[in-house]
């Protein structure tokens, strides 16, 4: 049976290979992709799909941002002004789901699509048609997630899910209306998309490297994505299965999580966090992989501590799967389990510190210049560092009991996700944008964007840290009067942070339309196979694999 499946697979790929050969011949005569909308609907080209993924991530970034603007508008002043508590719950839940699954992950997937084949000297991803399929699942998943939110304004249904991004508020899970069902289907679709992408990355990185590119010569970005892909393959099925169980509990009479009928609501938390904690690293690892490239380029030095970083990434991958219950330290775990999860979580700081010191080693005594990608990379190191340090104290059992479900957590994970994930993606976008478009962006505007982002990001999230220390709980639309000043500052910061991101759109549009031409090398100190190609790279690249020494 297995042999039959393999033969079918080989046949399918052979047919695809023949099509690619024909396409290549056509492209030799006419170095252009097919014109019009059909190019984007039917493309199997990794660069096209990379651009589609990144564009989708960018659009969702602004939709998710708009939702949280409404939340911060409600929190601007104490009392309920604009939103009902139910609407508030829906908005912060959608914000989180969209930002994690709709913005950061697709953008990082876009980067891997565009860059991995260029970095390893491959003509495309290993499974180009699967790649197309993986992308086109995403818009449907996004629509499915958002439909119940908008239907409620027409009197249909009770709105989107409001149970938070990890959806383990079981009372809501079992009671909320169609929104949870839509979210469950969305999770299955997103999971399918992530798995197709992950399998594609593993096969491409392991099987399509140019001659001479051994595993330990692979760029760190490819290593980081290879490890991320393994994490997705191990974590996503658990999340999908948990969502399936929730679905069967809700509609098919099972009682996995239903305490009233002998089920265990804490089991849902275990399953979701078994996925949810690796998910944090799934979001962060791609950024950790690309930052060393940027720091090295603008320090005019080679990547520092290459092997140490590879091993540290693997160590983080392993540890991320054995620490999940530090999110549940107040759920009544036995003391031995609490102590285990406390120390195992703190152990992650060791490989993470290896990474941070390697990043600092990369810029140490380097001939640094501070172009926009470098600024965002340094901003990433500083802000992610704050997220990591605050993360180090939170698994302490005693401290966690104090801060659990407070705004301390909100501030911490935004320093991690925004300070780590978004700053990393911004650094990557500015670093490779000239490669993608063939044009340079406006450096002055880029720097302005960086400084506005840094200022407003900190104005938004530092007050949340102190409000949390003072005991302000999250997930509640109102707060005690003593938190008024902190929330006012945070909301103003959030509005300005949101507005300042519109500058990024202007910078990208201006770059694409009228930026000065970029060279193939783009940046003076840039290294890697992608910089041996013209900017933008031709539609088909590395049809004859380069030899890596």
């Amino acid at each position, binding site marked *: 049976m297995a042999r039959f499946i393999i033969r079918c697979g080989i046949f399918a790929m052979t047919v695809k290979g023949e099509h690619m050969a024909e396409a290549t011949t056509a492209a030799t005569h006419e170095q252009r992709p097919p014109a019009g909308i059909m190019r984007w609907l039917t493309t199997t080209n990794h660069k096209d799909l990379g651009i589609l993924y990144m564009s989708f991530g960018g659009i969702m970034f602004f939709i998710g941002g708009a939702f949280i603007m409404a939340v911060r508008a409600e929190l601007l002043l104490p009392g309920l002004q604009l939103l009902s508590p139910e609407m508030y719950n829906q908005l912060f839940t959608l914000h989180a789901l969209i930002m994690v699954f709709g913005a950061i992950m697709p953008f990082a997937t876009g980067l891997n699509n565009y860059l991995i084949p260029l970095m390893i000297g491959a003509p495309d991803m290993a499974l180009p048609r699967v790649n197309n399929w993986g992308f086109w699942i995403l818009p449907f998943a996004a629509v499915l997630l958002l439909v119940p939110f908008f239907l409620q304004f027409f009197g249909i249904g009770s709105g989107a899910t409001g149970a938070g991004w990890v959806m383990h508020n079981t009372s809501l899970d079992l009671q909320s209306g169609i929104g949870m069902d839509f979210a469950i289907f969305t999770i299955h679709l997103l999971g399918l998309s992530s798995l197709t992408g992950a399998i594609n990355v593993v096969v491409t990185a392991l099987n399509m490297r140019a001659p001479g590119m051994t595993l330990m010569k692979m760029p760190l970005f490819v290593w980081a994505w290879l490890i991320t892909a393994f994490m997705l393959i191990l974590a996503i099925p658990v999340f999908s299965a948990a969502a399936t169980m929730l679905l069967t509990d809700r509609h098919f009479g099972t009682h996995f999580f239903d305490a009233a009928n002998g089920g265990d609501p804490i089991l849902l938390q275990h399953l979701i966090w078994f996925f949810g904690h690796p998910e944090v690293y799934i979001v962060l690892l791609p950024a950790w992989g690309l930052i060393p490239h940027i720091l090295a380029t603008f320090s005019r030095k080679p990547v520092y501590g290459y092997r140490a970083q590879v091993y540290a990434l693997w160590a983080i991958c392993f540890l991320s799967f054995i620490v999940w219950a530090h999110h549940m330290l107040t759920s009544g775990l*036995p003391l031995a389990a609490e102590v285990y999860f406390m120390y195992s979580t703190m152990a992650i700081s060791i490989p993470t510190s290896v990474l941070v010191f390697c990043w600092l080693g990369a810029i140490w005594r380097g001939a640094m210049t501070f172009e926009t990608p470098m600024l965002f990379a340094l901003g990433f190191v500083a802000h992610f560092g704050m997220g990591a340090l605050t993360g180090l104290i939170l698994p302490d059992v005693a401290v966690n009991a104090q801060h659990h479900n407070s705004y301390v957590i909100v501030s911490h994970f935004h320093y991690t996700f925004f300070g780590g994930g978004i700053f990393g993606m911004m650094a990557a976008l500015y670093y490779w944008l000239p490669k993608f478009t063939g044009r340079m962006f406006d450096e002055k505007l880029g720097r302005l964007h960086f400084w506005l982002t840094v200022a407003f990001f900190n104005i938004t999230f530092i007050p949340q840290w102190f409000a949390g220390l003072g005991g302000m709980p999250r997930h509640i639309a109102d707060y005690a009067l003593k938190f008024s000043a902190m929330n006012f500052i945070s909301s103003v910061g959030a509005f300005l942070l949101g507005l300042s991101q519109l500058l990024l759109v202007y910078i990208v549009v201006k770059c694409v339309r009228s930026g000065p031409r970029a060279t193939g090398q783009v940046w003076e100190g840039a290294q890697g196979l992608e910089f041996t190609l013209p900017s933008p790279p031709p539609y088909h690249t590395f049809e004859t694999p380069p030899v890596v020494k």
Partner: protein
Amino acid sequence: MMMGETRKQKRRTAWLVVALVLLVAIIYAATFIKLPVWLPALK
């Protein structure tokens, strides 16, 4: 690239894809069938 090598690469790709899809299916099934039994041990 030699023809034989291309074929070998395709064969390796197919094996990898089948192995990874099977891994996903096993983890999904194991979660659904077994984890509800295992994890309450943490309580």
